């Protein structure tokens, strides 16, 4: 299985990660751990699965897109 993983904004800069893929992740949290090589997860990190806000322990399946980003600041 392949999961697409994206990072945005300050998180992208801090982790020096933007687009990557992981294999064998069952939850968004596992995708974070694998993609970031077990980096600490800041408490305010948000996660989206397939363009919808989700939780870190939500399950993911092959082909899903998981995104991690800091609080949004548009408008």
């Amino acid at each position: 299985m392949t999961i697409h993983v994206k990072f945005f904004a300050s998180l992208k800069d801090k982790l020096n990660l933007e687009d990557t893929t992981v294999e064998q992740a069952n939850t968004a949290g596992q995708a974070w751990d694998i993609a970031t090589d077990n980096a600490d997860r800041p408490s305010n990190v948000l996660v989206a699965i397939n363009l919808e806000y989700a939780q870190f322990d939500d399950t993911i399946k092959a082909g899903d897109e998981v995104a991690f980003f800091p609080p949004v600041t548009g408008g």
Partner: protein
Amino acid sequence: MTAQIIKHIFDPWQAIAKHQEAANLSQKFGATATFVGTMRDFNDNADVSAMTLEHYPAMTAHYLEKLIEEAKIKWPLLDVLIIHRVGEITSSETIMLIACWSAHRRASLDACNWLIEELKHRAPFWKKETRPDGERWVEKNTDGL
């Protein structure tokens, strides 16, 4: 109902007038409420000369459409226009606009008010400010006060 994410500078009042004309709402709407956000040259007590707005293209487009759909369920709206800039923005440029058209005033006013707060809290945009001491990501939105 239209949500646009654009990279170029735009005039919000011309955009509203143009959209209203094209939407052919004439004689049906009695109320238009709008909100326009503009880049200020200071924030949080520091000089800010420019900023960069990053977004998550597919999710941002999806969320703007979703917010409009939710607003349409909550209020009897005749039309909604949202335009939001991304990329480089300099001082005094328009960042975003929301415009709501309805037959009677409360729907447009309440929807416009709701949409700006929901957009601020849910639409994936991130601001990075250019300050005298370098660039800095804005950590979180203010409460608007």
